[in-house]
């Protein structure tokens, strides 16, 4: 190592370094300058290293001076560096330019099925109104799918639900097991298992023994809803479903409630929105009525409440059920329900 550093030496080296720094003309020269002063064998580095060998008194003095000098030099270097980078960057980087129009390196993109996405949106809206989501069996007893819903055996309303029967006869040799035709059996199952208040939505698959066409599939997804308590009214049904319809289809939609019949509700309701294709004037989408039906609903029938041991004089409630694919078709303008289970990725990847 060279001479023992003194405050004077420190100052001299720093001054020289700063003068030379001023003279540096480009980034390369700056790098050379940096090596000669601040590199591993640089002059300033050597001084700083040498401080440790000084007697304590000198070490303090020289150390303070050296650290101050180092800070000055570092700062000046950083300033020059910024200067050069401003000047030099455009030229240097121009050589490194690329064709930004080439596609990026591919990352596989996955998708959720439109039915899943729609179920989630429906459940999210109802969750915001206090409805929990639950699921139930798809292979169901006649008892839950029909009888507990006020549809006894041989009731003509059974014609509304074309049924797949499972070849799984009971003790009497009768078919009592079926593929549920709607998610409504969960109304009875949930109420059997819980005391009021009840507020749930039930997403799930259903099956109808029906020929397939552009608007009918034999397999479909429904979301059922049920709210039961002391103090739930038809006005609440309207308010809740009105809110839902506008959240899912847009604030500008009008919502129509009309009387309809489902054996497990009384009064029964058909909920429709004004046709967004024609604005209510009537067109092919809405079957010339100006309205598009989106779900069935109603106040839970007292017989259903009695059947699960709820006192209909105390508890009232409403139920509703909607076809998820139908909602998705309306939202996305899908013309044929058969796309949903054809599983063509060219369809699925659009959602």
């Amino acid at each position, binding site marked *: 190592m060279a001479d023992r550093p003194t405050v004077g030496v420190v100052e001299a080296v720093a001054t020289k370094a700063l003068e030379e720094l001023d003279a540096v003309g480009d980034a390369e020269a700056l790098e050379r300058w940096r090596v000669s002063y601040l590199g591993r064998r640089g002059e300033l580095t050597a001084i700083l290293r040498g401080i440790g060998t000084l007697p304590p008194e000198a070490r303090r003095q020289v150390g303070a001076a050296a650290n101050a000098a180092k800070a000055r030099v570092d700062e000046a270097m950083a300033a020059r560096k910024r200067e050069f980078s401003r000047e030099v960057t455009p030229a240097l980087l121009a050589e490194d330019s690329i064709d930004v129009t*080439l*596609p990026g390196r*591919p990352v*596989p993109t*996955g998708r*959720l*099925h439109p039915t*899943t996405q729609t179920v989630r949106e429906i459940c999210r809206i109802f969750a915001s*109104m206090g409805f*929990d*989501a639950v*699921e139930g069996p*798809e*292979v169901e*007893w006649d008892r839950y799918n029909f009888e507990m819903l006020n549809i006894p*055996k*041989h*009731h*003509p309303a059974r*014609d*509304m639900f074309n049924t*797949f*029967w*499972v*070849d*799984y*006869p*009971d003790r009497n040799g009768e078919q*009592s*097991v079926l*593929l549920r035709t709607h998610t409504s059996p969960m109304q009875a199952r949930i109420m059997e298992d819980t005391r009021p*208040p*009840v*507020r749930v939505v039930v997403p799930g*698959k259903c099956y109808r*023994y029906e*020929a397939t066409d552009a608007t009918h599939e*034999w397999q479909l997804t429904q979301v059922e809803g049920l709210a039961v*308590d002391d103090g*739930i*009214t*038809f*006005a*609440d049904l*309207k*308010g809740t479903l009105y809110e839902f319809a506008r959240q899912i289809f847009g604030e500008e939609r009008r919502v129509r*409630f*009309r*009387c*309809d019949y489902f*054996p497990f509700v*009384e009064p029964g*309701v*058909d909920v429709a929105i004004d046709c967004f294709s024609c604005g209510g004037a009537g067109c092919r989408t809405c079957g010339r009525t100006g309205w598009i039906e989106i779900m069935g609903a109603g*106040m839970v*029938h007292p017989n259903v409440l009695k059947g699960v041991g709820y006192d209909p004089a105390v508890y009232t409630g409403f139920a509703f059920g909607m076809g998820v694919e139908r909602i998705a078709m309306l939202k996305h303008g899908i013309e044929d329900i058969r796309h949903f289970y054809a*599983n063509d*990725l060219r369809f*699925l*990847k659009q959602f």
Partner: protein
Amino acid sequence: MKAPLSWITQYVPVDLPPQEVAHRLTMAGNEVDDITVTGDWDRERVVVGRVLEVKRHPNADRLTIPTVELGDGKTAAVVCGAPNVAAGQKVAFAHEGARLFSARSGRVEALRPANIRGVVSSGMVCSEIELGLGDDHGGILVLDDDAPVGTPLADYLGDAVLDMNVTPNRPDCLSIMGIAREVAALTGREAVEPDSSYLESEVPIEDVVDIEVVDTDLCRRYTASLVTGVSIGPSPKWLQDALIKADQRPINNVVDVTNYVMLEYGQPLHAFDFDKVKDAKIVVRRARAGERLLTLDGEDRALVPPMLTIADSSDAIGLAGVIGGAETQMTEATTAVLLESANFDAVNTRRTGAALRLSTGASYRFERGLRAELAPLALRRATKLILEVAGGQAAKGIVDVYPGEEEPPAITLTRERIRKVLGIDPDVSETAGALKSLGFAVVEPVGGAVAVKVPYWRTDVAIEDDLVEELARIRGYDSIPTTAITTAIPHHSPQPMLDMKDRMRDVLAAAGMCEMISYSLTSPGELDGAAALGNGPEPLMIANPMSGEQSCLRTSLRAGVLSCLASNLRVSRNEGVRTFEIGRVYIPRGKSAEYGLPEEREMLVGVMAGPREPVSWGTRSGDMDFYDAKGVLESALAQIRLEAAFEKDTDPSLHPGRTARVSSGSVALGVVGEVHPSVLERFGIEDAAVALFEIDVESLLESSQEAGGYSPPNRYPQSSRDLALTLPASVPSAAVQALLERHKLIARSIPFDVYSGAELPPGKKSISYRVVFQSEKGTLTAEQINNAQRDLLRRLRQELGAELRGADS
């Protein structure tokens, strides 16, 4: 149900346009699917006229020039080509400019003046064709004599047929009368019943006819009348027209009357040729075993108890409430008609129809439930009409077998109930008024309650809440406010399975996989194709499948996912296909329903095949294989903090050398592997390796870890060493990693190169590991690392037979 407005207006005046009537009916629960307007003619230009005289055309033998009176002293003379035009006829006259159907052009066109063989004609006497009423070329349409001259034809002949979608609870609306009553209630009018009065002869019916109801449980009321001296023939035009508009084919006058009254009142009727009824005796009884009946539709049917028959002294002559017998049907020779109007049991009628696969207008109505009060009303009405259109004399009185007379149900509707169910509080007089308008007899509107008797036609109203609905629908649902639920929100109950499925969907989609949903029904053949049968449980069969391809409940998702993959690979050759499904498989618990419903097990199956990355300038990677599937699976499992172990295994669907069982601790999670070539062949997949994983979602719930505590990041530096090892081919890499990571100074090990070149000795493979050293106690020195490495190499050699590649190490 087709309901012509012209028919409805016979019972209730309608001064609203058909669209408005349809709208009100629809809102009140009787949906009008469609309105067919007939005779939508220009009211100014198409009117009723009367032919005053008919002159010959001066230049053409086959043309005439009728002069037509048009009211208000106006007349018009036009050229006419019809052979049947004659003075005194009422006709449909079209002025110039009227839009009519032109047989020549096949389009609707405005009528223009024409010079026909030298005579200028500006107007036309119309035939059915121009008016769009039919295709009768024969001549002009001749109207009835009562047609008022000068009236717009649309008012006289026009009609609107409402196509009603009647719900199963409203058999009353399967009748014009029922619809008229609805219209009355919805328009503030009153409906009147049709005239049923007729003259009777001196002979009491009991003297001629003997009727016995044996099975009163299935026939609560049986009424009958007798008309003798009828002549069977075609019905008059008004009757035929009414039936045609209502979609019923005219047959002969007596049968047409029974159909007309069924449509009018909703009560099915049946006419027997009385002379063919043996011993003039009718017995209503269950069918006997082995009994047969040739029915009106020409089928020879085997009857079985408890089907209800109408029999004479020896044989069944009709199937009660469903269809009549051929033997006693109306023929041209019939002169005496025994007319039946009865009340048959709904369930038995439905079962009979179902057993015979036969649904008729009669069975459709009976199975929806009719009240016994209706039977005699319809009987008298039909008797009157038969006398009118077929002549003859009615016997005195009717037979009425009605052992257990029913009281109409009485119900009380309270203000409290209305408030509780609807959330509104109308006053009692409004409630009473609404119910009255529907025909409910209001007994005593006292206090806050309205007590009513249900009218005979409303079989659907049985409890207080039914009246609540009546009130709501007559007021209109629009009049009920919209409010938010104010009761307490129930406690949230966690749904771990729903959450887990949603989580896996998100994770797999984020890993580049597309979700698919396939059918839950499949065929044993398809399941077998995916080698899921034979090795798994017997699937549950569908008793009434729509096709063989959908004849059983799936016991595996593999078949559905593979056929989806196959069809997508066919259309997407340049891109890989990655798809997954989360859905249920259905595993029976036993041979019959006594074992309970099947287990519905939530499964997750993912498949991938084709190029790992789409064709791109920046990449050149190959096709997806086992390790792609395993990678996605590992990453998905890592998301739920689940460390899975993979062990070599076999599976009937999968390649025997490329299959791993996946487990976590003691819980089996599923399998990952490449699909067996013979399975691929069954699904028509060629030249592609298909990697598949299948996971039991329930098992994920058992073994996944919720986020627990955390450990602070290790602040001491890591150092890495690369070890290229040569080891026996039979040693799984996982064993090497397990050995390395047991060492306390090793944070982890990563196999980064796998080599199986020719210069390796037989039975050996070579894998390079990057070994990351790190201590929680301080920075490791080179010496510590060297010692650790030496120690590790010794153990690798001793325990696994692994050597550092290159002799000198």
